[in-house]
């Protein structure tokens, strides 16, 4: 594999976007602002091409000789504390790991990232901070590629916090809006709470394994070293002292805290809906398609640490399922297009967590990939709507937009159908795999996911029928004040910022410029077809299963004997698939496909009835169930609870401590000896109290005297 061009020159994949970001950020200022998208297009574009060639190159290597695929590449030692090469030394390199999981993730990040940057050039046209925006995007792609390519936990952490930084900067892109500013801060801090767990997990990993590399090659080049390989090695694990064997059990719980933060799972999901304050391409790229899936990637990557730990796996699956249904229920009663999709993203991420939690990480990653296409498509389409509606996103104020936005209407319909799980589209296949795997573990999980799927179909098409079908209604005038995207103004009045309230005539402008529609079309094709890479022949799954991180759970999902596949002794070995189990699983899949098709179509049908044919009935229903509606619209008041139960008391406590600091500690320290003592000195050394300069000078003289004494004698 090391012969592949993309592997040999893998540093280009992250570095080109970084270089592009530097060019856009530092050089494309002032009058060159309009050119800022070019370096990013080129940098991310080449990066995307390299990623795709990497994927195909690896696939052809795999095709030639089946077997585990992984290759580690070290660039330089990053942090070394202690003598190098000695056990117990903390020594971590900037290095890349290439396996199918990395390759697939890279393609998702760079390819979808590229199309979003194309879209963004149209969407952000005329913005004051155009160059800044593109510089952040480039930096984001850099950090995200580092995240998925890194070959050790600290590289993962680097990318992890790095994308957090970019997310912070991009959510706060309209930094003069208090809402954006607060959302940015919240996103970073909530993520930091998760990263606390992540960091402790890394340290525990180091304490237990003495290394934080995922896999490191031995002399023969086999990846037998490294924490993830050792975790799957029974001889190693059993040779550990008891406290370390105990500690191993805790590592997944610590790491998953990080994953819950980054991937917006309960209880750390609260930052993601607020993150919609960022420009829509950011919501599409970072807060739907790529960054938020990093948690899923992490758990898939650390498969060998997680799979044997049933408590951890159940925790993940249960949290995922709960988040899925919880967020979907909130999405039922949201009116802001982007908010609906934000809660939908949280919910879909919950599906992916269930996937990795029920030993079907391949399904989880598959859903991650399809979701990246259709959710990016949905967000960007709602960006087009927002662009055309002058910043309005409230679905109560618009209807029948298919007349105004004919192309967008079809694009968003494809996205909605894929999200709703309409048979034949990508979301259907990937969601179905997760539901089946969940059902296989526990019918309760499966049922929860099916109910969530029903709600998903309903709220997705509620949005579609409300906004695009029915009689034409458009909001008058631009959105008030600083509401979403009112800055966007395709006439070059960017300098006016959000206060641009000049008369805008709907008819005069093309609301669907090609630069925005073309990338959407590509994403739409992806949303339709992406499912077929893993249908029937399971190419994607078989390929991903060659990742050393995934091989164990891949075998389980294929129907291998659970015990045999998870037996660490069999790690990396060929395990026979149980024919009966395989057959059962296959049947289960078919059944689930039928059930979930019905569920999705009923959901769509209900939405069509309530929001297209009989809108009045839906309004009546809301009135009748006022209480429930209010709870959902209030988002269960989780934000308020956090504010009241954690943030405010903590701040009060800080104020209390500050008072304590000034009155008590300071007073005590003064009284406890410093003052009397020093006063004594002062009195002795100077005749007059209070002449401190005199005192200091005396002191100084004393020192000089001492120096002179030293020098002279």
């Amino acid at each position, binding site marked *: 594999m090391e012969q592949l061009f993309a592997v040999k020159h893998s540093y280009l994949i992250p570095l080109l976007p970084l270089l592009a970001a530097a060019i856009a950020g530092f050089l494309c200022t002032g009058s060159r602002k309009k050119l800022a998208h070019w370096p990013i297009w080129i940098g991310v574009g080449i990066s995307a091409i390299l990623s795709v060639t990497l994927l195909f190159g690896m696939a052809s290597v795999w095709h030639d000789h089946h077997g585990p695929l992984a290759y580690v590449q070290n660039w*330089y*030692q*990053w*942090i*070394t*504390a*202690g*003598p190098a090469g000695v056990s117990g*030394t*903390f020594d971590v390199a900037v290095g890349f790991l290439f396996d199918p999981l990395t390759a697939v993730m890279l393609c998702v990040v760079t390819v979808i990232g590229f199309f979003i940057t194309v879209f963004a050039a149209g969407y952000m046209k005329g913005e004051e901070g155009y160059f800044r925006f593109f510089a952040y995007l480039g930096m984001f792609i850099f950090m995200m590629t580092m995240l998925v390519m890194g070959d050790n936990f*600290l590289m993962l*952490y*680097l990318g992890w*916090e*790095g994308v957090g*930084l970019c997310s*912070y*900067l991009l959510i706060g892109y309209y*930094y*003069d809006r*208090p809402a*954006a*500013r*607060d959302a940015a*801060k919240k996103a*970073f*801090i909530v993520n*930091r709470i998760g*990263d*606390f767990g992540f*960091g*402790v997990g890394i*340290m525990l990993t*180091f*304490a237990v394994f003495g290394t934080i590399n995922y896999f490191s090659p031995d002399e023969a080049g086999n990846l037998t070293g490294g924490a993830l390989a050792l975790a799957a090695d029974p001889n190693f694990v059993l040779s550990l002292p008891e406290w370390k064997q105990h500690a191993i059990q805790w590592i997944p719980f610590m790491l998953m805290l990080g994953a819950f933060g980054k991937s917006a799972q309960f209880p750390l999901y609260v930052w993601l809906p607020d993150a919609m304050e960022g420009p829509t391409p950011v919501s599409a790229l970072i807060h739907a398609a790529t960054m938020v899936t990093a948690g899923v990637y992490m758990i898939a990557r650390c498969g060998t640490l997680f799979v044997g730990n049933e408590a951890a796996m159940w925790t993940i699956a249960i949290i995922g399922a709960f988040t899925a249904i919880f967020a979907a229920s909130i999405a039922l009663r949201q009116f802001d297009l982007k908010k609906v999709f934000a809660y939908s993203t949280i919910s879909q991420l919950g599906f992916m967590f269930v996937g990795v939690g029920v030993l079907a990480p391949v399904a989880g990653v598959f859903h991650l990939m399809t979701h990246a296409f259709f959710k990016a498509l949905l967000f960007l389409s709602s960006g087009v709507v927002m662009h055309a509606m002058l910043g309005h996103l409230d679905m109560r104020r618009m209807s029948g937009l298919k007349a105004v936005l004919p192309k967008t209407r079809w694009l968003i319909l494809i996205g909605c159908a894929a999200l709703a799980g309409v048979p034949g589209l990508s979301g259907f296949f990937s969601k179905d795999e997760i539901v089946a795997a969940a059902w296989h573990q526990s019918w309760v999980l499966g049922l929860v996911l099916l109910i969530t799927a029903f709600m998903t179909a309903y709220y997705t098409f509620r949005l579609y029928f409300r906004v695009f079908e029915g009689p034409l209604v458009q909001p008058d005038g631009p959105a008030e004040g600083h509401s979403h995207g009112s800055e966007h103004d395709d006439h070059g009045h960017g300098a006016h910022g959000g206060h641009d309230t000049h008369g805008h005539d709907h008819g005069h402008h093309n609301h669907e410029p090609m630069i925005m529609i073309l990338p959407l079309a590509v994403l739409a094709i992806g949303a339709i077809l992406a499912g077929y890479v893993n249908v029937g022949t399971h190419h994607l799954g078989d390929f991903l299963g060659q990742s050393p991180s995934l091989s164990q759970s891949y075998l389980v999902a294929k129907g291998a004997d659970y015990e045999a596949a998870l037996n660490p002794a069999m790690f990396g070995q060929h395990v026979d698939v149980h024919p009966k189990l395989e057959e059962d699983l296959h049947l289960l899949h078919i059944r689930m496909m039928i059930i979930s098709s019905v569920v999705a179509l009923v959901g769509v049908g209900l939405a069509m009835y309530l929001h297209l044919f009989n809108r009045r009935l839906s309004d009546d229903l809301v009135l009748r169930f006022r209480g429930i509606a209010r709870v959902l619209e209030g988002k269960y008041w989780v934000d308020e609870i956090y504010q009241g139960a954690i943030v405010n008391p*903590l*701040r009060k*406590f*800080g104020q209390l*401590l*500050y008072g304590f*600091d*000034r009155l008590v*500690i300071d007073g005590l*320290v003064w009284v406890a000896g*410093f*003052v009397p*003592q*020093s006063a004594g*000195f002062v009195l002795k050394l100077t005749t007059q109290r209070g002449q*401190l300069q005199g005192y*200091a000078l005396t*002191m*100084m003289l004393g*020192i000089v005297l*001492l120096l002179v*004494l*030293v*020098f002279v*004698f």
Partner: protein
Amino acid sequence: MEGTLIWLLLIPLAGAVVGACLQGERAPRWWALLVSLATAAVTVVAACEFDFSASGQVQLLVSPEAFRLPEAGISFTLGIDSISFWLIALTVFLMPLAIAASWESIASRRKEYYAWMLLLEFAMLGVFAARDLLLFYVFFELTLVPMFFIIGIWGGAERQYAALKFFLFTFAASVFTLAGVIYIGTTAGQGAVPSFRIEDIINSAQSGMSTQARYWVFLAMLAGFAVKVPLFPVHTWLPLAHTEAPTAGSVILAGVLLKLGTYGLLRFAIPVGAGPEVLGALTPLLGVLCLIGIIYGALVAWVQQDIKKLVAYSSVSHLGFCVLGMLALNQTGIQGSIMYMINHGLSTGAMFLVIGMIYDRYHTRDINQLSGLAKQMPRLAFFFILFTFSSIGLPGLNGFVSEFLTILGAFTSPHLGIGYGVVAALGIILGAVYMLHMAARVIFGPLKVPQGHHGHDDGHSLPGDIGAREIAVLTPLAAAVVILGVVPNVILKTLEEPVAALIPSESQIVMVEGPAVVSGVGLGE
């Protein structure tokens, strides 16, 4: 160059003396800048002469015959290992920047000001280069004098009280240190002649002295150093001094002066106290003080109205990490701790510079009066955010490396353990809380004109963005912050040997399996 270290000290000292005699308004600052740059150049020479492959050995030793006092065991001996070298490098790096930052903001009594600054540089370099404990102590105390005047004359509204408090606190505490120094010096020599050579001191402490004596000497040294660091609960001089000092004073105070305390702890207190009876018994307690400092400093920083005070309290939190790593007494923790000294000097120094630039323009540091500066000052905002994230410990920037290593050191240390690591890690959440709180209020949000700013300068126009001089001050710091985050091994590798030499020998490490329970210390329990 013969006697490089002598030159290193002589140049700022002579510069201070000459500078004090200069005439004119502009000459002193140019002179000071020139001298500080020349000092930096000498450091580069020293770096070339220093053999980094033997970084654990004391090199470039000079001990002029003329300045020896054999009867008293005192000598003017200078020498550096890589720990000293990097702290010297930090000092000479920050000094020209601090001087350049004072360019406009120090308008009165410039001659004196720059003379004090150069004298301060002399004293700080002396602390790091001294190989004689008494000499170290003399330099250590000498730093107080220039800083006292810098705060007391050029400081803010409460400058006199702040200077007094700063002086009395640190001076009074270091009297104990002096007692310890003299005691250990008399025991270290042969016969009746004392010796203050660092090697003799440490040898004597580790072989000749009774446990009880070491215990008390350790505590005596700790008294002076802990106040300087400052450790909770003797930190209360710091917020006031930092807030009232002029910008350059705060930069040097946070950047270098606090490190005199940690350096003293590392160089003298820890070797003297090494072993289960002294450090083994005290590290759990001192570790708890560090943890309290981390959490307490962060929470108090969060509620500050004055952004300079916010950063000052953040130092209490940061230095808690630094000392915690040191107390881990393992390679990871101590190397991390030394990195922490350097990184904290860079990022907090930089933060004070940026805040100073804001203050120069708006004449306020009130978090309620400042808002949305990014709109008015995008370049300043860039640096502000960069240094904020360096301070928060974003991987890829310098702060992360040291923060991670110190926590990891505590986490894996047999003296401290997982609990200490976990609590310290909570500090990284709070670090983000208070720093981003400040960034959100000051840099982001709607642009706000501070009250009372109307009619200032030429009426309505708001002050502009930072200019070329200010960019030139911040850019080297920004570069250092990035470089030390990307390739920290440049420094870390060279710290391996001297740290290994500092760590108590094997027999002393093995002692604790589980909680350190040591009895028979003779503390009169």
